[in-house]
């Protein structure tokens, strides 16, 4: 990775990058409040989510967005990701997060962002978060390999920071967990084969994400 790409990757991976994702716990809050998950299980839960959800669902979804050469190709891929989702609430949250990401991207002048935002407004593009993110990472000249690493690390950080704000773990412990899971992140972030479809298995969070009213502090 060259210097410019490294700096861009750091910026995209910045937890302060304004894209609205801080407001989602991706099912964690519901699982904690239901007693399905305890603070001692946070690390194994995060690892399972990396395997079952990020690797199976987010990774191919993002890669497809990155690989889409045209708005039409992105729209087709986005529609494929849409029908692969389990529930309407997941679908809705992904679209909302995608819209928030596009707001920032348009203001920042990222290549392709305005066209994507207009296509979402016109109903030509659904705008799921991982597809939009993949296309934007390509727009800022991240390689697919780097884009996937940024995404995987951001996914893990999102879970851990939600746990931190829910009072389940301290800041130092979140970084200790992140360091221990770093090899897993690197191993899982290899680009998928062309045409790989989203196929995840994370039943606990899939069910939790279908219970939007159970979340109190986070969107879900």
């Amino acid at each position, binding site marked *: 990775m060259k210097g410019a790409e490294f700096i861009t990757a750091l910026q995209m991976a910045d937890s302060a990058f*304004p894209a*609205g994702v801080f407001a989602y716990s991706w099912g964690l809050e519901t699982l904690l409040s239901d007693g399905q998950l305890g603070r001692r299980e946070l690390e194994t839960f995060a690892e399972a989510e990396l395997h079952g959800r990020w690797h199976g669902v987010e990774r191919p979804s993002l890669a497809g967005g990155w690989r889409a050469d045209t708005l039409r190709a992105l729209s087709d891929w986005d529609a494929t990701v849409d029908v692969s989702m389990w529930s309407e609430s997941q679908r809705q949250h992904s679209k909302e997060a995608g819209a928030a990401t596009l707001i920032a991207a348009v203001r920042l002048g990222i290549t392709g962002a305005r066209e994507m935002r207009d296509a979402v407004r016109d109903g030509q593009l659904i705008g799921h978060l991982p597809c939009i993110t993949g296309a934007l990472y390509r727009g800022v000249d991240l390689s697919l390999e780097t884009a996937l690493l940024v995404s995987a690390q951001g996914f893990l950080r999102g879970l851990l920071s939600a746990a931190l704000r829910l009072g389940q773990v301290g800041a130092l412990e979140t970084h200790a967990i992140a360091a221990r899971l770093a090899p897993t992140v690197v191993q899982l972030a290899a680009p998928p084969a062309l045409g790989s479809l989203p196929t995840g298995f994370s039943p606990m969070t899939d069910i939790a994400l279908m219970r939007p009213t159970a*979340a109190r502090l986070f969107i879900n």
Partner: protein
Amino acid sequence: MTAARVGIGGPVGCGKTALIEQLLPELARLGIETAVITNDLVTDEDAERLRKGGQLPANRILAVQAGACPHTVIREDPTLNMAAADRLEAEFPELDLILIESGGDNLASTFSLDLVDWWMFVIDVAGGGDIPRKNGPGVLQCDLLVINKSDIAPHVDVDLDQMIADAKQVRGPKPVLAVSCRERSRIADIVSQLRRDVIFA
């Protein structure tokens, strides 16, 4: 033309939602088409309260949940609110004004100018007469400081005149208004300020 975006921030219990409940009929009387976004710390209680009040059609009130960070959603990362405001504008092109109510936070809370054109900060006498002297960024930086619950000042041992004087001293030329949402006093003055500084600016 896009609708003006106005932030309403302040600590928990200062009366932000009560203020909106008083502003809405006054804005409607003047023909100002309004929508509201609430940023609830916990669920969408404030939005539900406003919907039940019936002063606006329910679909003109959106709730954005703040992920346990009421300041982040209006300051460091306001994109969820910006997306909600864009949705409202697309759905209701006739809108003149979008009020964005923050979740209750502390005196350090401020609004991003990426999100709003103008914002007010609400404090109340029951929170203590010394709040203005604490020089919180919310008190100092807002476009209008509202001191709510002026009617109960004698009952909570607060010298309201002194509180207003302290606020004016720390804010310099920027305006301060003492109001009572319960008694509906000086609500029209806030609307006048809004019209002058934002809607017809």
